[in-house]
């Protein structure tokens, strides 16, 4: 009996040592075989639909660079991935950070300047950020969309102020994605900060409005798709499994009705609400990652911003092109059903980076306190 245990003990020590050796060997042996290579480009991104197989292989054929794409969940995941991998040099290019995350990425010193000199990017696209640490590649305005077949002035009147939505007729009929977990939701919350600072005398407009919305049974969803596909009556959600259709207004892009029309033979009942300062201008960026292969990254940025690729943003990626003189296509009523808000909310990337925690906290208090 004792002897048996002895054997086991010997086995244990040996095996433990062996485990460590084997694992280290396996990991270092297998993993580090391919690393720094002049001919490769590692792009960190999320499901950016413009980055199609065809588009990538055209780039690969022209430049001889081999592209590997690390695909993450969303803009926030890109930021946190870059932070975790900071200083490793494993990544070359980040595509998909937006202006709500950009400044944080800059503060963390994750990006390096692009050497490209791309002409023809619209001044609008540069408006949230003008430096070289991030080059805009697509953009859009986040605003309220409503179902024009119900919000027709008879059943429900078209809001002329966000305060209208706190009234009885809108009880339980507004769906908004959470600013905590959804990027359109966050954009809209940021817009409301600016909106109430301008339209309300008291500082508390923001808090009061969100509390009143809560009291008016606003539907807060984790993501954009739940709000738009499950609750919103104006969009394609009604054809999707799980549709409930209890909300007639939601947060999406100002050109979402255009996309609806484009897919539906120039028809949609969804419309965007043009309220001053109640919309948020979102820009998505391509950024050279610090420590990565800047040369190859710049080549890809140039390609991404070339006419042939960037002009396709509206149909490939459902966002605006950032190039001067490009607009949404007329085809299928895409442009006709899209609006450009007269006056976006004015929130800088810097302010977002500094205050986002405090603002989300404020939003949370407004939503939970005095319930």
């Amino acid at each position, binding site marked *: 009996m004792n002897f*048996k245990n002895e*054997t*086991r003990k010997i086995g*244990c020590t*040996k*095996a*433990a040592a062996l*485990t460590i050796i084997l*694992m280290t060997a396996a*990991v270092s042996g*297998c*993993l*580090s075989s391919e*690393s720094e290579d002049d001919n490769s480009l590692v792009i960190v991104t999320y499901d*950016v639909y413009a*980055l*199609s*197989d065809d588009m990538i292989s055209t780039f690969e054929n022209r430049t001889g660079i081999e592209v*590997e*794409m*690390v*695909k993450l969940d969303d803009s*926030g*995941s890109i*930021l*946190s991935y870059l*932070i975790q*991998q900071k200083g*490793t*040099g*494993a*990544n070359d290019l980040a595509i998909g950070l937006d202006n709500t995350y950009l400044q*944080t990425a800059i503060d963390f010193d994750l990006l390096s300047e692009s050497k490209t000199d791309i002409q023809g990017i619209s001044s609008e696209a540069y408006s949230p950020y003008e430096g070289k640490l991030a080059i805009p590649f697509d953009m859009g305005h986040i605003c309220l969309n409503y179902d024009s077949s119900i919000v027709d002035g008879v059943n429900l009147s078209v809001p002329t102020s966000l305060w209208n939505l706190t009234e009885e007729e809108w009880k339980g009929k507004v769906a908004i994605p*959470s600013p*905590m*977990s959804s990027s359109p939701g966050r954009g809209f919350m940021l817009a409301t900060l600016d909106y109430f600072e301008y339209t309300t005398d008291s500082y508390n407009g923001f808090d009061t409005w969100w509390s009143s919305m809560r009291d008016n049974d606003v*539907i*807060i969803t*984790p993501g*954009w*798709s739940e709000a738009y596909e*499950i609750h919103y009556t104006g969009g394609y959600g*009604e*054809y*999707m*499994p*799980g*549709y*409930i259709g209890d909300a007639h207004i939601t947060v999406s892009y100002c050109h979402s009705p255009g996309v609806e029309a484009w*897919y*539906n033979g120039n*028809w949609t*009942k969804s419309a965007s609400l043009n309220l001053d300062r109640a919309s948020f201008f979102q820009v998505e960026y391509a950024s050279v990652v610090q420590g990565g292969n800047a040369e190859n990254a710049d080549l890809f940025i140039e390609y991404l911003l070339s006419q042939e690729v960037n002009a396709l943003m509206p149909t490939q990626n*459902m966002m605006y092109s950032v190039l001067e003189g490009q607009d949404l296509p007329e085809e299928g009523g895409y442009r006709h059903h899209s609006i450009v808000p007269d006056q976006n909310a004015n929130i800088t990337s810097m302010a977002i*980076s500094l205050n*986002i*925690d405090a603002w*989300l*906290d404020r939003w949370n208090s407004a939503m*939970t306190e005095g319930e």
Partner: protein
Amino acid sequence: MNDLGSGTYRLIIGTRTLAIAAFLLLIASPIALAVFRLIGVAGANPRAWIETLDGNYMSAGAIEFTFLQSIISSFATISLGLPVAWMLGRYEWRMQSMIRAVLTVPFVMPSIIAAMGILTLTGDSALGIRSNEGTWFWTLIIAHAWFNMSLVIRFCEPILATLDPSMEEQLRLLPAGRTISGRIRHLWLPVLIPPLSASFCMSFVFSFTSFALVRWITIRDNTLESVMAISSPSAGIEGYMAFTSEIVLASSLIQFAVLSISLWLASRIQRELQRQYPMAPARVARGHFDYGWVFMAPALLFSIAPIVSVAIGSVRVRTVESGRAADTWSLDGWELARDGSFSMVPLSDAMANSILYAIISLAISMPLGYCIASAIHSLERTNRRMSEALDFATMAPFAFSAAMIGLGVTLGVTKLDPTAFSQFWPLPALAHVMLTTPFAIRIMLTGLRSIDREYDEAARVLGMGPLARLTRVRIPLMKGPITVAAIFCLAMSLGEFGASFIVATNSDWATLPLLADSWRGMPMNPLAEAASNAVATALAVMAILLFAVAERARSNERGGMF
């Protein structure tokens, strides 16, 4: 032992220790890394974490809701599953193995597909029962019961099918067993309580950690798992939305505590109450039940309907012309999925990836699972405590959330080699191994326990060494459990979503569930849903075929845990 055998013995014990160490390292290290990172951001104050969790609008009430829905779901699972298990076990059925395969398929469906299938089925175009605040809760409960029902069947049916008939016959002749209720009280309840409570615990665990079903079916509430999923993208970033780190930590902590307790209870109950009932040598033929199909047909329909609705969804495309929507039947969704477009890979690529990763994880988790199972098995005789601890530790992957494991794997791999996320293609298979190995262990452990010890002893006195006994006695005797474990590993790996989602980072590595999810997540495009359904259908067909094969392989075996 002595000089002659000690080399081989040391090798065996060494291999086992190595397997256990490797597996525990694979599980424990990512979790530890994730926890340290999050604590670095959120501070080490569990009380504050839970206060943040409870005070946040998105997560308030998540604790209560998680408990409530998982307890009700587990009861619903039992009450739906037990009658089916009874019918299946007590009567003869034509195509018995096919029936069992069909009833098991829900369990290996990726949950997003399950959610879509259930939603289609309960939506306005079909049953029309999920349309408002009053019904979604029960839709969720039914969805969980659908998902977990096969657990009850797998746990309970074998003992129902193979219990020596004389047990009941004898009881019938005794005063206490003359009535049905008497027989239930004195025989069936004691027989069924261990498998029932084990399946209750397991469906509790799965409902507790349910994410996709909750996300798509509930309206306002969140489970701890879905809270974590929505908080995790910004968790672990210093100075940016730090409260999300607290929420993830608080949810993980509660989830881990609750799930550990239930898993521990499950294995405890099984050990304590499991008595050796005399088993008939093979299935006991009990004749047909004339109206059996009246019960079985709805059960089969219940299992298959959500999948069928997904298949139908793959050929149904919505077209809207001037405000009039019409469904047209076409293969456009299949074609889109086949060719790949936007940022999605072609269906064939995803299929190849899925198969490749399934084979790799099979190749790792089968020997790994066997080593660990036989270690636990032999420790059962020499060191019971140790074997219980190991038994429990191998269940740990079920108790951790995907979000936590994902964060940890990212941190861990970054430490080892940051380029792995774009270069090291077997990475997703490692995540699969974490989840398939516990199943392989469970199934093979049951198999090992069912092998009479004398088989091994007789082989030893015939002069067979350890290796010869393994290859000529144990493995052939374990053919059934090994086949089932293998098919289960393949199917689990094929359907795995949560972990793959996090580690299959290189877009070329997309598997079928990931591809289905990507297509499902594409907004606006009417063909995207059809494409998603097409990918899911391909996956379901593969899973059904695998299970049919598995059932055939084990058809003349005694039932095990699965």
